[in-house]
């Protein structure tokens, strides 16, 4: 990683570091050479780490007051809101924190898609990231069940019923997940247990994600390999640390607006009605961040194929490094890819919207077209585009386009683009 060997200055430090090289690690983390042209889209890694820690700490406190029992869960949440000191704050931070976590992770993922951060040699970082994303969705789903409101109960019923689509063993698997013949108290207690476990698995994967990142180092807006350390890099501390903190504070202001001034706007009002197995809500909808997948699930007429399509939608992301055949990373130098990138963004937003609408008529038709396009983007467009696209010339280093010395017109355009990116950042 860092090319030089680190020796602590104090005698004790040296003694300790020989036995457990924590100081070498700290030194590596502060010195870690980072491309100096990273824009603000690169601050979301730090923001996400903050989100995870916030969710774990608020979750720990909530778990001290929450009761995982079908008859008591809803009341215990109201107890937290009314009688626990600052319980309302902790719960609203946790509930809105999940949404903010997903907001940040979507920006983080779409940044990687735009700048080609998933490409060689960063495939493993990307795959670990997708595992984290998958576990995040599972954790969020489990957590949404815990308040035991109507959406909790019926959301759990719909999602666990998906497993009944598996041929032959489907029904047994579903009963095994439920711990009975319907979503009930055993389901709630195991969901609570797993909801407590998963964040720590995510934490472990985050450490691997960062470790894997520190082997090749960060990608950057131009998407070129850079020498490290060099004129193109700055040490992580203080340059990137202060920038990450600044971005985090902006993020926190938005977070605070949700928590303090519209804490329930991202939730569903039905979840303030206690779970009732005898009354089905008019529309069962998941939280906003799962809506695109929900739309894909519902747009396939066959139940089993729908479930397969939904999981395939995540799986195509996992194998993306091998689907995108282009050697050029950044969309700045891929004029056609840039178009398709924005089509994909629009497509996912459309899917999200259709996921919130009833699956009928025009909504269903649009959802089907959008689902098809989603897969076409990854399975057809990207592999062909990588071979056919005429990419722009790529600068040799980060400093070069900034310091001038253009070789040809396309390079000059690239310069403009980088300047634009830098001024945005």
């Amino acid at each position: 990683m860092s090319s030089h060997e680190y020796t602590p200055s104090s005698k004790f430090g040296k003694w300790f570091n020989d036995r457990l090289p924590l100081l070498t690690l700290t030194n590596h983390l502060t010195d870690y050479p980072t491309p100096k042209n990273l824009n603000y889209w690169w601050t979301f890694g730090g923001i996400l780490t903050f989100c995870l820690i916030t969710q774990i700490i608020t979750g720990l406190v909530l778990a001290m007051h929450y009761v995982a029992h079908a008859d008591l869960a809803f009341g215990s949440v109201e107890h937290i809101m009314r009688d626990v000191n600052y319980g309302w704050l902790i719960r609203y931070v946790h509930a809105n924190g999940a949404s903010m976590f997903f907001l940040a992770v979507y920006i983080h993922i779409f940044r990687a898609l735009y700048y080609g951060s998933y490409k060689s040699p960063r495939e493993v970082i990307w795959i670990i990231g997708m595992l984290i994303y998958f576990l995040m969705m599972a954790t969020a789903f489990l957590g949404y069940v815990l308040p035991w409101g109507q959406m909790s109960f019926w959301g759990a019923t719909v999602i666990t019923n998906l497993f009944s689509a598996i041929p032959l063993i489907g029904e047994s698997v579903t009963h095994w997940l439920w711990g009975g013949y319907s979503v009930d108290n055993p389901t709630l207690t195991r969901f609570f247990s797993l909801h407590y476990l998963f964040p720590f698995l995510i934490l472990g994967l985050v450490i691997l994600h960062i470790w894997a990142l520190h082997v090749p180092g960060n990608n950057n807006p131009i998407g070129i390999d850079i020498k490290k350390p060099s004129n193109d890099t700055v040490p992580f501390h203080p340059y990137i640390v202060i920038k990450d903190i600044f971005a985090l504070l902006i993020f926190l202001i938005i977070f605070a607006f949700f928590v303090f001034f519209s804490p329930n706007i991202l939730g569903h009002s039905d979840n303030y009605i206690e779970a009732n197995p005898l009354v089905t809500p008019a529309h069962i909808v998941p939280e906003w961040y799962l809506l695109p997948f929900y739309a894909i699930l519902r747009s396939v007429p066959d139940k089993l194929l729908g479930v397969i399509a939904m999981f395939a939608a995540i799986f195509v992301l996992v194998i993306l490094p091998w689907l995108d055949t282009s050697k050029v990373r950044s969309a700045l130098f891929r004029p056609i890819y840039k178009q398709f990138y924005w089509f994909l963004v629009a497509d996912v937003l459309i899917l999200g919207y259709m996921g919130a609408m009833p699956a009928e008529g025009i909504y269903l038709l649009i959802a089907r077209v959008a689902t098809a396009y989603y897969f076409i983007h990854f399975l057809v467009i990207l592999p062909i585009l990588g071979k056919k696209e005429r990419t722009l010339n790529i600068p040799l280093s980060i400093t070069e386009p900034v310091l001038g010395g253009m070789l040809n017109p396309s390079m000059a355009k690239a310069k403009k683009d980088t300047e634009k990116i830098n001024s945005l950042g």
Partner: protein
Amino acid sequence: MKKLFAINIKIILIFLIHCCVAYSAGNGSALLKQDWSFKSFFGTFDRASLQRGYQVYTEVCASCHSMQYLSYRNLAEEGGPEFSLEQAKAIASNFEVTDGPNSDGEMFTRPAKLSDKFVMPYANTEEAKLSNGGAYPPDMSVLVKARAGGADYIYSVILGYEDPPEGMVLDDGVYYNKYMYGNKIKMPPQLYEDLVIYSDGTPATPEQMAKDVTTFLAWTAEPKLEERHKFGFRAIIYLLILTILVYFSMKRIWSRVETKV
């Protein structure tokens, strides 16, 4: 390319606008909108309205609707109706609760204390249904948060009784309500002119009573709202100042390298 890109962005924008329009239209724009004092950035509850609202709740709604997550002590707490402790104690002592078992192993009744939960009108859901033609009067503790449209929706439903449109046949014990989902409601119209007598002399019109009781229900659903608004204002001011300080530190640190941040 540039052109295609611009078109692209336009498609996204048009789509988003469409979403917003569809969303607001789908949410029953017909609701009676009120200028709630607790809605704004610094919003607080109107204390007098909360106290009147409690009176409407306890004299009208409470005969069918429970309020299971509230205790009598809440009535005297900051940010609520803020009855004095003596008033809250007096209110509580009007209700009988079952306690026990005592040393003889017997359950007994006693007047409620501040620490007791609001007494429920029915022993259980089944009894509640039996007394209300099969419909369960929902618990009112978080009712405002449990309905899309929130306070406006509750206010509208209370005042939304009308004669059914031509050709609509209603079963016995079912009423037509303009704002209720499906327009059919089993709760009969409740509020009539001067149904309650306000001690502060406010004329008890149905609109006034509906407004007061909805304010009260907004408080029961969100009893820490005032604390939250106050806390939020301070938190955001703190964050803004810190952000500005960090911004200038960042500029200073990055001035050592030629790249702009």
